[in-house]
């Protein structure tokens, strides 16, 4: 087996294992850490296919951002001895059916899809190309969605500050 195949199967095996652990663990902080490993595995796959920008964004947004946020809220709200209560069998049954259904659907589509090897050279994804696309206003540029999203984020931040300040004056 080629080295890249071995590395790919190792990473995917780790991701599957930790995704399963993340949903089955009854200690909430451990579940968050298992989730971190699964997300870092995704970043590793992006690095493997040389899509470095997306890999770094995956690390910053998910591993460094969202998981840290989850850990912070766990730290503030739960005690170390707390364990999540066991889910009822009905809930387990429904979620397992839904998850397995999704898996079967995805596998069905993947196995029936005809993958054609592209003849075009793979597009470059360097920072300069991404930057020019994001801020370009000619055809193929994404400046309008970029600006709209930044305004949305700004509004969200201001909203968060307003909510936080109102509570501070009350107490």
């Amino acid at each position, binding site marked *: 087996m080629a080295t890249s195949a071995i590395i790919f199967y190792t990473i995917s095996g780790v991701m599957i294992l930790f995704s399963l652990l993340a949903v089955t663990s009854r200690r909430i902080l451990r579940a968050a850490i298992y989730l971190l490993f699964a997300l870092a595995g995704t970043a590793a796959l992006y690095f493997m296919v040389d899509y470095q920008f997306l890999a770094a964004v995956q690390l910053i947004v998910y591993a460094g951002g969202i998981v840290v946020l989850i850990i912070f809220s766990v*730290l503030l709200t739960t005690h170390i001895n707390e364990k999540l209560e066991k889910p009822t069998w009905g809930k387990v049954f429904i979620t397992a059916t839904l998850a397995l259904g999704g898996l079967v659907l995805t596998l069905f589509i993947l196995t029936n899809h005809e993958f054609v090897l592209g003849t075009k050279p793979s597009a470059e994804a360097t920072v300069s190309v991404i930057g020019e696309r994001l801020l370009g206003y000619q055809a193929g540029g994404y400046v309008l969605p970029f600006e709209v999203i930044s305004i949305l984020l700004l509004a969200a931040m201001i909203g968060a500050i307003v909510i936080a300040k109102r509570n501070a004056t009350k107490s």
Partner: protein
Amino acid sequence: MKWLYDFSYLTHAIHKGLSERFEPGTVVILEMVMVGVAFMLLFAVLGLVLVYAERKVSAVIQQRLGPMRVGKWGTAQTLADVVKLLLKEPLINKDADRFLFNLAPFVIMIAAFMAIAALPFAKGLHAIDFDIGILYIAAVSSLGVIGILLAGWSSNNKYSLIGAMRSGAQIISYELSVALSLLTIVVLTGSLQLSVIVESQADGWWIFKGHIPAMIAFLIFLIASTAETNRGPFDLAEAESELTAGFHTEYSGLKFAFFFLAEFANMFIVAGIGATVFLGGWMPFHIGTWEGFNAVMDFIPPIVWFFGKVGFMIFLMMWFRWTFPRLRIDQLLTLEWKYLLPINLMNIVLMAFLSLMGWHF
């Protein structure tokens, strides 16, 4: 001796030698193992040297002698400390989360290993030269905070938990300033790739070429990176008088040594990034078109330049630690969010304007 000036001769020779004997796949794995072992050795040596340096620097500043007994001028003191740490009993609290407790030191070390891989040490001596260099370093250095939070929570100790929360808040806040001050220089270089950033400083370092905004950015970087590595005067997370030792209170023996080593490794990485972006990395000190002067400077090998600059940055950070009094948590957060961040944002606009008008050298 030409490999001393361009390490690609050495690395290509190693690659050729391995390729003749093994399959391409095996060569890749062998080279990865070699790079990993090299960085492990580097971290071990760094730990020994920097701990000794810190004790001697603090001694000089406080008009003491520092360690003097073990070896000549106390040079074997850190080795003796390592032996002591290895022989200590690893303790784990009752009711501590054993899995996370054992995992936390490794998370911090892994983040440090991932960050150091992208540093250019000398010409051709560069583990991975990412196109997204600075973004990558910002991404992986934000992983270290997870280890600190885990250590604090899993210890089942309120001092650890408070220390971890403070550390976390501090690191997350100051990460912004570090990244933004580096972006100020990226405006001039036009690239995030660290090798390109170093090459662009062949006719002068960015701290001189970018004059006023570059100097402001350098100062902000120094302050923010000292805070990001949890060092004094920003070490309130481990303020021994109020919190015993912060997030690593419950750690002993080898696991404590990991935290200790990670602190010095992170200091080295931060100093290395600062030296690369602001002070030219391994690029010798050149002045414009002074041919003779530049030739003399080129005679000093790049690796000496790199470690010299990193040593200078580390000395500055040690000087800070032993000179300034510790900040309070509210002062710390005020400094970041009300002063450094607005100054930083205005500085980037100023730098962009300067770059647009062509007023830099």
